[in-house]
């Protein structure tokens, strides 16, 4: 029994060491990426390519997500409000939920899946085929060439994408409120405009740059740390999605909490 406990303790210790080492490596990787941000000017074509990939190519899934967000809030909340004779408040509920929380969160998760998977798998494949070593061997900094353009492109694109999700979420809410609750669009939009304060936009738009940095760095680091052939690329891709999504969920909560607490004094 004691032997089993010792074995268990040793494996836990090894695991903790592994986690600490990975955290340290991730920190150094992130610092190097920030230190090389100036390379975005040199690799501006790569920035544009990545902006197209993470921006334009993400549009279909984001549009579908955004349309469903507003509609679902109307279905769930609008009917509850209607039971109390307060369906004119539907616009307020949709506006606050969409702008502050649901739109950044859902868009963040979609981008974590799409951008995180792409970065991890693409860079992982480059790592196992020694293309990253080739860059270093022939004098090109792989972080400047591969990570910085992805980081800058995500930072540029995430805010407009989430703004689009906000608009589509509100519009889909308006259509469903009219169709399902027979709520006049004028009343809906008036309540949307009435309730939204600058603080709500600050909360909503504080998230895209944080998500962009977190998702890009986590997924690129996973790609660079890939070992073990094609199975390793698979593992990196899964890690890229899971860790990026966890990052989005956790930071979404803390950003909302901290900013709202600060602004409410």
């Amino acid at each position: 029994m004691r032997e089993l406990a010792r074995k268990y303790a040793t494996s836990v210790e090894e695991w903790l060491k592994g986690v600490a080492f990975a955290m340290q490596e991730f920190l150094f990787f992130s610092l190097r990426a920030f230190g090389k941000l100036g390379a975005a000017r040199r690799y501006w074509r790569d920035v544009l390519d990545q902006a197209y990939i993470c921006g334009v190519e993400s549009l279909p899934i984001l549009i579908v997500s955004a349309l469903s967000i507003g509609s679902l809030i109307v279905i769930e909340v609008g009917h509850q409000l209607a039971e109390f004779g307060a369906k004119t408040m539907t616009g307020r509920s949709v506006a606050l939920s969409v702008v502050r929380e649901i739109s950044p969160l859902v868009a963040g998760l979609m981008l974590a899946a799409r951008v995180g998977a792409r970065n991890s798998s693409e860079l992982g494949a480059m790592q196992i085929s020694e293309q990253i070593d080739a860059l270093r061997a022939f004098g090109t900094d792989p972080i400047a060439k591969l990570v910085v353009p992805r980081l800058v492109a995500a930072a540029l694109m995430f805010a407009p994408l989430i703004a689009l999700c906000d608009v589509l979420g509100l519009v889909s809410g308006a259509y469903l409120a009219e169709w399902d609750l027979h709520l006049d669009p004028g009343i809906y939009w008036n309540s949307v405009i009435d309730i939204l304060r600058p603080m709500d936009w600050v909360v909503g738009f504080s998230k895209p740059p944080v998500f962009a940095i977190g998702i890009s760095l986590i997924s690129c680091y996973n790609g660079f740390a890939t070992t073990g052939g094609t199975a390793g690329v698979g593992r990196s891709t899964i890690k890229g999605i899971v860790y990026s999504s966890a990052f989005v969920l956790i930071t979404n909560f803390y950003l909302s909490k901290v900013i709202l607490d600060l602004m409410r004094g």
Partner: protein
Amino acid sequence: MIELRNVSLRYGSREVLKNVSLTIEDRTIKAILGPSGVGKSTIIKLMLGLIKPTSGQVLIDDVDITHLSEVELFPIRQKMGIVFQGNALFDSMTITENMSFFLRENLNLSEDEIRRRVQEQIKFAGLEGYEDSLPDRLSGGMKKRVAIGRALIFHPKMILFDEPTAGLDPVSSKKILDLIARLQREIGLGAVLVTHILSDVFAVADSVAVLYQGEIIFNDAPQKLYESAHPFIASFLANPED
């Protein structure tokens, strides 16, 4: 000249290289022979400064590169080209782009000069007509020749080959070995050839070091292998395909 002085490398509890010392003179072809997974490719990466040894020194033309930064390493790396085992070609770039990419990245050359250098390598590698092809469209032997052309693009004085004939058919293997011999004969290029294929060693190498369990157990002319009494070398010579 490349020199490894008492180099050891450890990954966690696994000792990959133990006190390895090797010297590779300019204009000579040195083979590093050993079974798969013994750390042969690691030696090449150490020579380029892609990984750092746990202890010992790696010297390139008497400069210790062990503690150099990436920026400081670049002029040293320019003296050496590398051909990776899987070629490491950029699959979204054409053959011409693969060869010209690093010239544009690192040297301030005119477009004419870049075109001239790329054409020179394409001709040397016998790849005329494939300038605009993507690597996926080429055979294994042709990809290897592209990788060799790319390795020569900075006009290095030494070229490092990681398993240059692994996975190639006998005809392509012979072409690659002939190319390596031509590089030495025609432009005086030295080479380090990491391989597990004995016939490659006898085909082109001036000397051979045998790596076994992280240690150099033999370092002499290939013909002297037959005089070695080491049981691993005897078994390797008896079963070269194992």
